[in-house]
């Protein structure tokens, strides 16, 4: 190669755009046997390289694509400049849980979907950068606690310590309200602690966010199932002036298929709660057991199904199946999750639907009778409707089944709160984005309003309700 040839190549390389930086992660064969987080996160160098790809649009579409309006170009600019703590501060102006969102938000459908670089190539890896900045701040032990606002002398009760409840608590405490969160379980975090597995969201991160809220002055009462422990009206009687209901869509959906109550058949909520909240994967060190099935089938095609099936593999399954009645195109799970599941060896049984569970003499599931499906015309969800193929039944041998086909509204709070309007599915009815319910002073948001959705949408609802409650309480004080 001549001297001039080398120069020409260098010039050409400069013109080639820097590709979206991959995040280093555990190899599938290793991670499938542990519960450690899959990606390691960006190094400082990778983060800066990726951040420099952002062209700092004057009218950034990404911000509009974010349910909590994170100043995305702002925090990315700080990373590009090497000011990682500054980046975290920018994030926290609008997002109280950046380390969580960087991991579990569906960025490909939100901020990254509208990134201008994505039009011709690949979008900036906004989620990975968000995660990097938040982790950097936490690991550096430099999480800054803002000066407490002057107390307003007004108490607000938040019901549920999930993403929505944690977000609104953070917003309201910063405005000077006395905020108490009532959590039904023994640990704060909601779906972040009981639902999303350690390998996707380490629980230490959630705990750090909860601890941060406590430092801000938020009180968290655990083991307090509102409706039983105290009712909404009793909270008002105790002097809470506004109440935000963020209890989640906590009730599992079963399919009413014969044999569904056989031993070895779990709802995804139970399977994941045992593994995540109760740490059954560390049984018997942790006292809660979980069935370590050899042949595990997970019914459903959403993120919860992917979390369940990947948990099954980590618990030692030899065969882990996803049984889904449509095709991969219609799967509601994030592409990244499906990709991870495939890499780890999950077997996808698509266009397949369970019609019966068959048990042994001890009442333990031993096989699923399935039916093949084909896609027909689009239904109300816009996805093509699956239609059973007659005479196509076949058996899959299993010893464990996880039903992950969605959740319903938990009726406890509505049932114990007179005058609280719910729709025909039991979800709380709210007026517009404020989260205002049919009861004066009662607001609601997150999955108990929308039905099962994402962490970030629940957070967005918390943010909006915080504004509405602030306006309501300011008005109330003047009277």
């Amino acid at each position, binding site marked *: 190669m001549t001297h001039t040839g080398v120069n020409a190549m260098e010039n050409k390389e400069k013109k080639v755009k820097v590709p979206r930086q991959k995040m280093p992660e555990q190899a599938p064969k290793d991670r499938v046997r542990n519960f450690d987080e899959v990606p390691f996160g960006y190094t400082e160098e990778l983060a800066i390289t990726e951040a420099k790809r952002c062209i700092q649009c004057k009218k950034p579409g990404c911000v509009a694509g974010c349910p909590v309006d994170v100043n995305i170009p702002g925090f990315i600019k700080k990373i590009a400049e090497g000011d990682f703590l500054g980046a975290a501060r920018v994030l926290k102006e609008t997002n109280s849980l950046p380390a969580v969102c960087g991991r579990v938000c569906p960025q490909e459908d939100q901020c990254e979907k509208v990134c201008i670089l994505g039009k011709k190539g690949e979008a900036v890896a906004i989620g990975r950068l968000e995660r990097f900045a938040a982790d950097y701040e936490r690991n550096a032990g430099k999480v800054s606690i803002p000066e407490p606002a002057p107390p307003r002398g007004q108490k607000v009760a938040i019901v549920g310590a999930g993403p929505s409840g944690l977000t609104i608590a953070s917003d309201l405490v910063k405005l000077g309200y006395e905020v108490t969160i009532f959590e*039904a*379980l*023994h640990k704060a975090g909601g779906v972040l602690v*009981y639902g999303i597995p350690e390998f996707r969201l380490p629980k230490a991160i959630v705990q750090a966010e909860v601890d941060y809220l406590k430092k801000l002055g938020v009180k968290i009462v*655990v*083991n*307090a*199932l509102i409706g*039983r*422990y*105290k009712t909404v009206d009793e909270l008002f009687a105790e002097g809470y002036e506004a109440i935000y209901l963020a209890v989640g869509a*906590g*009730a*599992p959906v*079963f399919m*009413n298929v014969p044999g*569904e*109550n056989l*031993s*070895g058949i*779990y*709802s995804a*909520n*139970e399977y994941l*709660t*045992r593994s995540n909240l*109760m*740490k059954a994967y560390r*049984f*018997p*060190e*942790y*006292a*809660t*057991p979980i*069935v370590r099935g050899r042949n595990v089938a997970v019914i459903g095609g959403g993120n919860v199904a992917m979390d369940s099936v990947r948990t099954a593999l980590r618990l030692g399954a030899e065969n882990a199946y996803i049984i889904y009645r449509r095709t991969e195109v219609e799967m509601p799970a994030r592409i990244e999750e499906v990709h991870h599941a495939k890499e780890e060896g999950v077997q996808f049984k698509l266009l397949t639907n369970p019609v019966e569970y068959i048990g042994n003499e*001890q*009442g*333990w599931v031993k096989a699923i009778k399935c039916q093949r499906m084909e896609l027909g015309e689009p239904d109300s969800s816009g996805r093509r409707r699956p239609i059973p193929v007659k005479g196509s039944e076949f058996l899959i041998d299993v010893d464990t089944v996880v039903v992950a086909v969605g959740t319903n509204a*938990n*009726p*406890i709070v509505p049932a114990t709160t007179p005058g609280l309007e719910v729709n025909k599915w039991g979800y709380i009815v709210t007026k517009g984005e404020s989260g205002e319910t049919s009861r004066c002073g009662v607001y609601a948001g997150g999955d108990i309003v929308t039905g099962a959705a994402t962490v970030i949408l629940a957070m967005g609802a918390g943010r909006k309700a915080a504004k509405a409650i602030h306006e309501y309480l300011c008005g109330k004080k003047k009277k």
Partner: protein
Amino acid sequence: MNKILEKTDLSDSVVKMVIEAPEIAGKRRAGQFIILKVDEKGERIPLTIVDSDAGKGTITIIYQVVGKTTAIMAGMKAGDEIMDVQGPLGNPTEIENFGQVVCIGGGVGVGVVYPLAVALKKAGNRVISIIGARTKDLLILEKEMKEVSDELHVATDDGSYGFHGFVSTVLQNLIDKGVKIDRVYAIGPVPMMRVLSNQTKPYGIKTIVSLNAIMVDATGMCGACRVAVAGKTKFTCVDGPEFDGHEVDFDLLTKRLRMYCEQEKQCYDAYRCECHGK
């Protein structure tokens, strides 16, 4: 954290504890239960609230040592703390003046039926109680049951105390004698509840049972505790824990209760080895 204020051994393996839990004490009604998690690594187990004192802010629980959690608790003493106590949970018992009721408790189930007997008596019912155990040493709450009952029958399987035989035989004797029974409350081991429910069915005597299904969150979130009642799936934690015994699929309940037998034994054995090592 909930402080243990009193601990009493009722028998070799049955323990009574009075725990500080002011909010629950003020709120709970007969038939409700708590979920208790003894320490950071503990499991969540449901236990009936046997009694409460709203003034002192305490609740009473009774448990039998059957596994790791209850063994840990048996080793605790007054002044120690239980990490998590959640409650009150479940639907309170439907309490009315039904007339003459029979409250039947077997084994540690006497502790579960006791608060019902108290509430039913208070509501004006004439309360006949039948309590039983395998043997005299395992019989609990005889004095307390006597105080709230208009009539108390005691039975032991081995005849070491009271009637020699099962509580079901005592009930049958009452029925045969023509005693008017408006409602039966039958709480104890699953085989006992099954037998009693089958027994009262032909007479059309409404029989309420309290189910001890395996639970995790006990807020209606997980479905671990699902049971079949009148052919429909119900969650014991939020739809129960009490159901009409004539409608319960006891066979399914029995099978589902065995789901973790092996692991529970493994966990308990490991714990006992650990204790012996110390």
